[in-house]
């Protein structure tokens, strides 16, 4: 079934550009499709390995003669590296390789910098590295490296870099690229003409990913072949980038990732640790493991860009939005890094129907670690502002916040003029969330004592979840009637291995326990794209289904011969081949595969393109109830109800897991998570799990997932879209709106810390504090 047609049409438009067309048409599984495996909860296939500690993560790799590497990091936010003397470190017994700007290859890295650059641009920037026989020896060796720095002026916070007298961090200034502007209609005129205008200045903190598993890898050479066991969201991206950096052909680089303790967007690219480990390993002639510790993880391996957002909404008295204006400032850190996609302005342009919209997005360099994508990058930040502004507008107009949103419903992507693949998706989310929660904006109990309750609502759209074609899968049918599915994608902890196996089992007509799913290895699987943008199931599910369908077609053709029945009368279900759907005349799949063994059925499948005339998006709506202690500023979440258009729900348990995890991160973003930077020192003060406070289970209330579960048959033939990122997007504004509902103060800065809440309550005179 594999089809790949390459054309180079000379038609005047896109003249002479190569076009690749692939993907045989498959009829989608519709809403009424009778599916046996897809749609059912099934525990993760690798669950037993994980809970018994046997699953092999990057850190668990132990090769003979393996060394451990550590990286010396800049103590200065901005400095010239004048001289690095590694001689004492290299001479320390147990040290086998050392690298620094003095002797490392001049490998291009971020923008115009080098792997070990002569300019360090944040505290934590890489200066030197050693490989040694133990962590202790490696750390001792780092203490022996003598570095002469020439400190340079710096600006480590967004506030500092926006000051008129801020130092110039780059020859061209502090702007990371030209401001991104978008405009439709005439928002200035519309704002002047609006019946109601709400305006607010919002800010969001830099959040740190803090995946449980830090970045890191184990590198080993066999001759000129390099193998990397890396903690990554994209084995193929890492292979391509590492091969390029090291000047190796791609077939000599193998990247493996079997299990992962989270990435959240920060592991989409080859990071310096990959190439440093490979270079040290080559120098030492021994395998090298380089895992980041928590501090390095939080300084140098990504963060969510802090933002300041100035928002204006204009509306008619009936709630119809007439203008949306947003000016956004955000800090990208020391470098612009691949995998960064913080399109903060996007949601302003698309979530609500509005003819007059202008956004301006200004990205600035700061002397902190590079910002990278973090679970719904941009939309999490934008939702905090836009969804509070909508709440405020609803209150000004005396409208139910949900009703206001319904009155401004967008059924198409207004930036592209394309209808959504499931135009009613967001509306269904509104219905399901409101119904399951019992949404009643007037229903908060009257004030009584210091503790007040409130409810909040927020919605979101998201550009992800559509899947990124292309991507490939193979299916092998073994002689015993079991199947192996091979893809080059990766399971970054979401349960993709299980969800994809379910798709394969469904199409193959096999029970799930007769299907094995192999992934996460560039040497054994065909190309698959990065697992970002909530894309894995939507990218590779259709490829797996296509490969399975290809195998089934071959199987039925073989069965037609062995059973002497026309192929079109045959089908597979529950591991048996049925004639005219009749179980009594069925044979086991194994009967056919045994018959032809050792000849083998091999299916191939590809992920066809997304439709050109529709915009595939994911949507969601969330309701929360909070209790605010007006005397202590403590916010307690009582419950969260969430509904998401993620298309078909392939495995409800796995989807619930994503929802619980996303909302948990949203609670952190709303209430406690904030990278604290001392602007005078250029120093991150809390690059640890002690003072950077992620939520604990005690902070997370009961979470109810109100299923939408309508297959998006336009999106792809499985009808499934992504759910990894969306649950986080509306959580923080829903909480902020609920806090407003409870106590009447609007907190426009995230996180909603105690000090901010207590200060706002005191300013309003409703802090409830009893004074003598």
């Amino acid at each position, binding site marked *: 079934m594999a089809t790949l047609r390459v054309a180079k049409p000379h038609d005047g438009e896109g003249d002479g550009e190569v076009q690749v067309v692939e993907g045989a048409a498959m009829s989608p599984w519709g809403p009424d499709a009778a599916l046996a495996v897809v749609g059912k909860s099934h525990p993760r296939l690798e669950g037993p390995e994980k809970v018994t500690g046997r699953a092999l993560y990057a850190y668990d790799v132990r090769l003979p003669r393996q060394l451990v590497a550590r990286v010396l990091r800049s103590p200065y936010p901005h400095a010239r590296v004048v001289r690095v003397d590694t001689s004492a470190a290299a001479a320390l017994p147990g040290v086998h390789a050392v690298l620094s700007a003095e002797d490392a290859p001049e490998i291009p890295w971020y923008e115009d910098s080098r792997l070990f650059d002569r300019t360090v641009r944040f505290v934590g920037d890489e200066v030197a590295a050693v490989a040694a026989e133990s962590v202790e020896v490696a750390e001792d060796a780092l203490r022996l490296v003598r570095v002469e720095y020439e400190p340079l002026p710096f600006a480590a916070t967004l506030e500092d870099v926006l000051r008129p007298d801020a130092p110039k961090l780059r020859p061209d200034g502090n702007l990371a690229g030209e401001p991104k502007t978008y405009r439709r209609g005439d928002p200035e005129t519309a704002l002047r003409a609006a019946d109601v205008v709400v305006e607010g200045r919002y800010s969001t903190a830099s959040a740190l990913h803090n995946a449980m598993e830090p970045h890191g890898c184990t590198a080993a050479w066999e001759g000129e072949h390099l193998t990397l066991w890396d903690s990554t969201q994209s084995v193929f991206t890492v292979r391509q980038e590492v091969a390029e950096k090291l000047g190796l052909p791609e077939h000599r680089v193998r990247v493996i990732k079997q299990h992962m303790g989270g990435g959240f967007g920060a592991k989409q690219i080859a990071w310096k640790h990959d190439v440093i480990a490979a270079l040290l390993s080559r120098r030492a002639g021994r395998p090298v493991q380089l895992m980041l510790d928590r501090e390095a993880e939080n300084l140098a391996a990504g963060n969510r860009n802090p933002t300041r957002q100035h928002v204006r909404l204009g509306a008619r008295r009936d709630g119809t939005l007439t203008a949306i204006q947003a000016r956004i400032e955000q800090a990208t850190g020391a470098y612009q890094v691949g995998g960064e996609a913080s399109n903060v302005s996007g949601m302003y342009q698309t979530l609500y129907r509005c003819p007059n919209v202008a956004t301006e997005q200004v990205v600035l360099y700061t002397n902190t670690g590079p910002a990278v994508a973090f679970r719904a990058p941009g939309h999490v930040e934008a939702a905090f502002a836009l969804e509070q502004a909508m709440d405020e507008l609803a209150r000004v107009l005396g409208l139910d916040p949900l009703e206001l949103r319904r009155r401004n419903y967008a059924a198409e992507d207004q930036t592209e003029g394309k209808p959504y693949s499931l135009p009613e998706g967001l509306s269904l989310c509104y219905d399901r969330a409101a119904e399951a929660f019992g949404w009643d904006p007037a229903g908060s109990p009257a004030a009584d004592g210091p503790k007040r309750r409130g409810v909040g609502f927020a919605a979101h759209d998201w550009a992800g979840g559509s899947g990124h074609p292309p991507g490939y899968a193979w299916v092998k049918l073994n002689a015993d009637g079991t199947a192996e599915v091979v893809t080059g994608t990766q399971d970054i902890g979401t349960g993709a291995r299980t969800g994809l196996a379910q798709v394969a089992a469904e199409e193959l007509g096999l029970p799930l326990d007769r299907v094995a799913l192999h992934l996460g290895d560039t040497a054994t699987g065909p190309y698959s794209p990065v697992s970002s943008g909530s894309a894995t199931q939507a990218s590779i599910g259709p490829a797996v289904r296509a490969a399975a369908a290809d195998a089934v077609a071959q199987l039925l053709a073989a069965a037609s011969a062995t059973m002497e029945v026309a192929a079109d009368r045959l089908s597979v279900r529950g591991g048996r081949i049925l004639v005219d759907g009749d179980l009594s005349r069925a044979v086991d799949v194994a009967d056919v595969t045994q018959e032809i063994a050792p000849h083998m059925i091999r299916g191939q499948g590809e992920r066809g393109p997304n439709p050109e005339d529709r915009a595939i998006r994911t949507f969601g709506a969330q309701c929360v109830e909070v209790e605010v202690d007006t005397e202590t500023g403590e916010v307690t979440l009582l419950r969260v109800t969430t509904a998401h258009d993620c298309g078909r729900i392939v495995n409800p348990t796995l989807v619930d897991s994503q929802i619980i995890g996303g909302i948990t991160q949203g609670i952190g973003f709303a209430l406690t998570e904030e990278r604290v930077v001392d602007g005078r020192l250029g*120093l991150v003060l809390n690059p640890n799990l002690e003072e950077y406070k992620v939520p*604990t289970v005690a902070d997370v209330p009961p979470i109810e997932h109100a299923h939408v579960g309508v297959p998006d048959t336009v999106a792809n033939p499985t009808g499934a879209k992504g759910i990894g990122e969306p649950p986080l997007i509306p959580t923080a504004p829903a909480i902020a709106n609920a806090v407003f509902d409870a106590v009447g103060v609007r907190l426009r800065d995230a996180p909603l*810390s105690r000090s901010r809440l207590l200060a706002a309550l005191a300013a309003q005179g409703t802090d409830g504090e009893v004074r003598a």
Partner: protein
Amino acid sequence: MRRFDYASPATIDDALALLAGGDGAVRPLAGGTDLLTLMKADIATPERLIDIKRLAELDDAIALDADGLSIGALATLDDLEDDPLVRQLAPALAEAAAAAASPQLRNMATIGGNLLQRPRCWYFRSSLVHCWLKGGTECQARDGENALHALFDQSPCVAVHPSDLATALVALDASVRLRGPAGERSLSLGEFFAPPTDDRRTENVLAPDELILSVRIPPPADNARGTYLKAMDRKVWAFALVGVAATVARDGDRIGAARIVLGGVAQTPWRAREAEDLLVGQRPDADLFARAADAALAGAAPLADNGYKIPLARTLIRRALAAVTADGAPPA
């Protein structure tokens, strides 16, 4: 972590001999939940650790006698949280232990080590900052990021004492029994904790060659009750933004004696004596508690970012007093 030697002596005398003359380069090791963290961060760099978990005379026993409750220095926070005697006679301590850290840490951390833990100030804990408390000349927190720092100015350093137990124990009028080369001595915790000085940049007066043997809590007065309340940035596993321990003994319908101690506001547990004085001899009511709370914070000198701790502390004081004077509250 840097290389260090390790010794596991059998007796206290052996341990003291190993500590003698070490001048801080030799450190006792019990639960290790703070010391090892400091060593990993290169803040503490001892040359030698003396494991005191196997000393014959040092234990984790919790016992009651005529002088009150005696708690061996090796008792873990988990022991304190669950011990029936502690829960009955010193519930403020059991509550403080339960509110501290995480279950994993409470299983390891000892009461002795808990009282000796160093501040959590992020400048102190950064290996890149040579702050005053580490021997430098400047407190970077004083004009820096100080939302978690002190309300009461006691020294050049504005870090706060992180121990929940210390706050409760001062309210319980507890003392520590210490042993050093010159023998044993007992100090009330009010004397034991002392703001750091130019010459002693620690939060207590324990000599480098001394060990804590035990903690003693005197028998509670008749009709005494106590509690510990803690405000944190999340529901569990965080150091106190503000902690309040209160013990109140009733004398008929009036307050006979009271101790109010604040944590998270100073370099030592902060005893609110003005508030205590104001309570004694009065009939408990909400107005009295509010006046006591105001008195307790009257001398506060907030830094740029920590002013929120004042209303927070006032509220916790009022609530703690209400809890320990409410009818039907458990005795202590």
